[in-house]
């Protein structure tokens, strides 16, 4: 079982989000910042489009040979003194992590930002077992204080404003002077830095995710701007890497290709501040670093996606560009999606992982504008995959009866062009006649969803198809 989902209530979630003034204010930051920065970074690198092709091809090649690269990777990790654990699902992953923590006698665990750790709900599980997990990425720390899920895969607290963070810090950091000034974001950062510095130094185990795993060398790679992931993994005695199986790449060169598109697509940086390549535990004579190095490789639904049309989703490198460019995400934010992964990538991945019966609304929450696909660094055809989910939803009779009969009716006409033209012409004439006086309708049968919010204009003249035909033959209006 994975973390709780509210994806089935997407419509209610979205309605609430649209009427949340704090959230709407915060979402403005997404619209303004990310898009321009990514574009500027792409423009500065003439090879950017070629690198996107290269990134796509590397991921495709790896997925095609995933069994063999996993074996090669496992062998290299072991050779460097690390341990590799395989977990079929979230339950197994949590058990493995807990037993490593117990073996290390852990009381507190620091964590770097990791989406797979959200997916398996490790924090609550550790807490329930008497181990205190501390998120160390600033955004993750803030949402942990609020007991929320991240609302964005690279900017987890993007739904919040500074005043909300200030309130949380005052509520939780009660050991500090109640009269202290926290009016500036930099003061919030400084406070979090000081509080978390203590946690880093006290932790018994550090848990990070992995942006990539390198089969050639048995290396795990993390990418951060804060440096929190590094302090998480070099200070405690035990480092646990959590990674889903599709994080693999063949070589250091392949990783370097992907790193060239990751930061540019995510934040518009030329390169993230800290890109760290870890191979095994501390070597003899080393002055620091973890004594134990564990990798937990998690399937949790991925292997079943291989060989299907959703295999393409496994190329995702979690940069967040798709949600940064999504008008639906801009309008409702990440929490409305109701599970771990929001935005277009979430709309495709979530039904694969928790079932289209629960997450069927997500692939429907799209305008099909195609911006997500146009910026995806590994060229995942996100709109096409959302459409595949809609088809599956329809095939499995999960769509409501009214929608199904409406679609059936439409398809009956759409498959009979002559009848379609006749029917639309008749409908237009009828509507045009009925609305000839006001020129619009404030109420129409079967169109409440439209007329509740705005008038429906009465049609005038001829149908689009009729006009198209006429103009193609050289006539004018």
């Amino acid at each position, binding site marked *: 079982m994975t973390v709780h989902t509210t994806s089935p209530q997407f419509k209610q979630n979205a309605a609430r989000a649209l009427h949340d003034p704090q959230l709407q204010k915060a979402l403005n930051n997404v619209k303004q910042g990310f898009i321009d920065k990514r574009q500027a970074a792409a423009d500065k690198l*003439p090879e950017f489009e070629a690198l996107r092709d*290269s990134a796509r091809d590397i991921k495709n090649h790896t997925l095609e040979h995933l069994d063999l690269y996993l074996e090669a990777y496992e062998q290299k990790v072991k050779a460097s003194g690390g341990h590799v654990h*395989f977990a079929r699902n979230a339950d197994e992953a949590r058990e493995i992590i807990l037993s490593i923590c117990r073996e290390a006698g852990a009381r507190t665990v620091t964590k770097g930002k990791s989406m797979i750790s959200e997916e398996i709900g490790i924090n609550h599980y550790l807490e329930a077992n008497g181990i205190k997990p501390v998120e160390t990425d600033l955004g993750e720390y803030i949402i942990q204080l609020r007991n929320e899920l991240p609302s964005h895969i690279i900017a987890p607290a993007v739904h919040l404003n500074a005043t909300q*963070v200030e309130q949380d810090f005052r509520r939780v950091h009660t050991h500090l002077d109640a009269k202290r000034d926290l009016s500036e974001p930099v003061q919030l950062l400084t406070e979090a*830095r000081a509080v978390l510095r203590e946690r880093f130094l006290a932790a018994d185990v550090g848990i990070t995710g992995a942006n990539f795993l390198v089969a050639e060398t048995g290396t795990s790679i993390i990418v951060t701007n804060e440096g929190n992931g*590094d302090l998480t993994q070099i200070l405690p005695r035990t480092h646990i890497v959590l990674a889903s199986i599709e994080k693999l790449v*063949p*070589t250091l060169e392949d990783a370097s290709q992907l790193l060239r598109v990751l930061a540019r697509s995510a934040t518009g940086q030329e390169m993230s*501040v800290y890109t760290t390549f870890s191979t095994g535990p501390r070597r003899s004579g080393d*002055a620091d670093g973890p004594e134990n190095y564990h990798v937990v490789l998690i399937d949790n639904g991925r292997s079943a996606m291989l060989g299907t049309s959703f295999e393409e989703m496994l190329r995702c490198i979690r940069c967040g560009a798709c949600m940064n460019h999504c008008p639906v995400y801009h309008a409702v934010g990440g929490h409305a999606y109701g599970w771990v992964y929001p935005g277009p990538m979430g709309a495709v991945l979530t039904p694969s992982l928790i079932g289209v019966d629960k997450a069927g609304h997500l692939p429907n929450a799209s305008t099909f504008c195609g911006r997500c696909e146009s910026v995806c660094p590994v060229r995942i055809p996100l709109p096409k995959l959302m459409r595949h989910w809609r088809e599956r939803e329809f095939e499995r009779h999960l769509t409501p009866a009214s929608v199904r009969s409406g679609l059936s009716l439409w398809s009956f006409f759409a498959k009979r062009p002559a009848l379609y033209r006749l029917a639309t012409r008749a409908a237009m004439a009828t509507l045009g006649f009925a609305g000839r006086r006001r020129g619009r309708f404030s109420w129409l049968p079967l169109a409440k969803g439209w007329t509740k919010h705005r008038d429906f204009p009465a049609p005038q003249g001829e149908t689009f198809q009729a006009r198209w035909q006429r103009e193609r033959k050289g006539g004018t209006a």
Partner: protein
Amino acid sequence: MSARDEILAGIRRSLGVKGNETIRRQIVQDRLERAPKGVVPARGQVSGEERIALFRTMAESSLATVTEVGTPAEVPQSIALFLRDHNLPATLRMGGDPRLKAMPWSETALEISQGPSEGQDLNAVSHAFGGVAETGTLAMISGPENPSTLNFLPDNHIIVVSAKDIASDYESVWSRVRFAFGKGGMPRTVNWITGPSRSGDIEQTLLLGAHGPRRLHVIVVRE
């Protein structure tokens, strides 16, 4: 069946393969051995002065500060000056890297201490394995004489890099790593560092010094 075997079997079932096909194994073996470079941007493919200048521009655009000195012997003075200019205490933590050890620290008033950081050090200096001009990135490798904690815990991190070790691209750094550690071998940690620590998590406002160093100062040694 173990989780491992079941996952591998599941992957093979989905891909429609058995896992023992010679041709697939060869393809994988070949890729791991050849490690093709892919697309390497032209930007970094310059040499000499031009490459150093590019490195400098890119490092500065990542909000690091960069200075150049003629010889290793000038590094201690340069660091003393940097600390004084920023009103920082004249203390410095460093590992046992022989290149740093050989520098004339006693010519300065700096109070030097040696070893990894335990979180109390304001200033630290490390020697880079190399630099990458393409993005102004420093490549650090861990080892008995190069503790990784020095790269992250101090408030002010100074990195010394030899001009001759500044490469055009990441791929050149990997080929040097392979030369030093053998094909398929790696130091325990390689840190690529591009600028000082930062966060944009509060209202997408860029703030420096999130958990790692607030300042990153790079000293390029020309000789």
